[in-house]
C-alpha cells in the first residue's frame, strides 16, 4: 500500500506561516493498492488537493469517513470527482442505515451552509452506512470499529497484500482509564490497531495540555505512544495536530516522543508525506 497524507491537522484548517511544514489542512489520507485501487480516508480540507490530483482518472473512489465532525467532512463540497459526470464515488461512514448517513451529511451539503445539494451532484454517488463486519473493497479488506470519540466515530483497519494500516485519527483511548494503557480487552481501538505495520493516530495534545481537554476525544503524546506500544505496531504516524501547535511546537513534541526507547518508529504526520506500508 502507498499512503499519502493530504491533511493532518485537527479541528480546523490552520494555514499560516507557522504551519507550513506540518501543513494546515484537516484530515485526508490517500491509500493506494499495488493495482492502483484507491481508498480515501476522511474528507477534511486536504481532500480538495487530492481531488484535483485525481481529476479525469476515471477510477472508482471509495471514501471512508471516520465520523461527521466538520474537520472530517468540510472538504466534501470541494472534492472535484463529485462534480464529474461519470465518476463513481462510494461514501462510507458511521451509521446504522444508509439513509441516516445521507440525512446527516445533507445537513452540511445543503443551503444555507452549502449551495449544492447531495442529490444535485453529477457523479454517481452511493452512500453506505457501516457496521463492524469486515468487508472487501477491491484488494482491500476493511474493518471499521467504533472507538472512543464523541458522537459515534469509526477507526479503520485496512489490509492489503499482507500489510496492515490502522487509521484512528480522532481517539481518546485513555478517557477514564486510571492507568493507561490497561488490558487490551478494555482498550478502545485495540482490535483495529493490533499488530499494524503503520498506525495513524491522534496526537493532538501535549501531556501538559491534556488535563484541560479530558473528554474532548483526543490523545496526549504519552497516550499515543502507549497505544502504539500496547498494539505492537511497526510505525506510528502522528496525526490530528492541534491548530495552536505551530511547526516548532510539533518538532518539540516529536523530539520528546522520540526521547524514550520505543519498540516502533515515530513518523511526524506532515501534510504531503508519502510512504509505503
Amino acid at each position: 500500500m502507498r499512503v499519502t497524507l493530504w491533511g493532518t491537522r485537527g479541528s480546523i484548517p490552520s494555514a499560516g506561516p507557522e504551519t507550513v511544514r506540518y501543513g494546515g489542512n484537516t484530515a485526508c489520507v490517500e491509500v493506494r493498492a499495488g493495482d492502483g485501487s484507491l481508498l480515501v480516508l476522511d474528507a477534511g480540507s486536504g481532500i480538495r488537493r487530492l481531488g484535483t490530483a485525481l481529476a479525469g482518472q476515471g477510477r472508482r473512489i471509495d471514501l471512508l469517513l471516520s465520523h461527521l465532525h466538520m474537520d472530517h467532512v468540510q472538504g466534501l463540497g470541494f472534492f472535484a470527482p463529485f462534480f464529474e459526470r461519470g465518476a463513481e464515488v462510494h461514501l462510507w461512514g458511521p451509521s446504522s442505515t444508509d439513509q441516516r448517513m445521507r440525512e446527516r451529511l445533507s445537513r452540511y451539503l445543503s443551503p444555507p451552509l452549502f449551495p449544492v445539494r447531495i442529490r444535485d451532484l453529477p457523479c454517481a454517488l452511493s452512500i453506505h452506512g457501516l457496521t463492524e463486519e469486515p468487508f472487501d473493497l477491491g484488494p482491500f479488506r476493511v474493518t471499521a470499529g467504533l472507538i472512543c470519540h464523541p458522537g459515534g466515530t469509526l477507526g479503520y483497519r485496512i489490509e492489503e497484500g499482507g500489510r496492515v494500516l490502522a487509521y484512528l485519527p480522532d481517539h481518546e483511548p485513555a478517557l477514564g482509564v486510571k492507568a493507561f494503557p490497561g488490558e487490551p480487552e478494555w482498550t478502545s481501538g485495540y482490535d483495529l490497531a493490533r499488530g499494524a505495520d503503520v498506525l495513524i493516530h491522534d496526537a493532538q495534545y501535549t501531556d501538559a495540555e491534556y488535563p484541560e481537554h479530558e473528554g474532548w476525544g483526543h490523545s496526549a503524546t504519552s497516550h499515543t505512544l502507549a497505544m502504539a506500544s500496547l498494539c505492537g505496531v511497526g510505525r506510528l504516524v502522528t496525526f490530528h495536530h492541534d491548530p495552536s501547535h505551530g511547526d516548532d511546537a510539533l518538532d518539540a513534541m516529536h523530539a520528546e516522543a522520540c526521547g524514550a526507547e520505543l519498540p516502533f518508529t515515530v513518523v511526524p504526520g506532515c501534510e504531503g508525506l508519502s510512504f509505503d506500508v
Partner: protein
Amino acid sequence: MQPFRGGGGARHNARAMAQQAIELILLRQWASYLTIPVMLVDREGVLLFYNEAAEKVLGQRFEDVDDLRAESLAELFQLRHEDGRRLTPEEHPLGVALHERRPSHLRMRLRALDGSWRLIESTAMPVEAQGTRHLGAFAMFWEVPGP
C-alpha cells in the same frame, strides 16, 4: 437459562482475548468512577465487571471472582425475593434486561460472601447499541438501610 455465569469462564475463553465493544468499555470506565454499585455482563451473561462499590455489597473483590468456579452468581449470592422465596434467574433484573431486552427493577435479598444477608434494590438495563447490537446488560443496585 442462567442470567450470568462466574468470571472464570470469561477469562479463559478465547473470545475474551479480543477487545470488548466500545460501549462496554465506556460503561466499565464510567462505573469505575461511581460510588453506586454497578455490575456489567456481556450478552451471554458472562460477568465482565463490577465496581468497588459493588465489592462492598457483595463482600468479594471483582479481581477474586476468578477463583470462584461459580455456575452462577445468582446461586452464589443465594438471591431471594423480599419475602424469602428463591429468585429464579429469569426473575433477576439482570436476567430480564439480558433476555427480554428491557429495563427491570426489583427489591431482593442476597447473602454476601461474608455470610451476612442484605436487602438490596437493583435496576438493570440492556446495553443496546448502534447497528442493532445487543451487547449485554448492566445493573445498578444499592443496599436498603435496615429498619
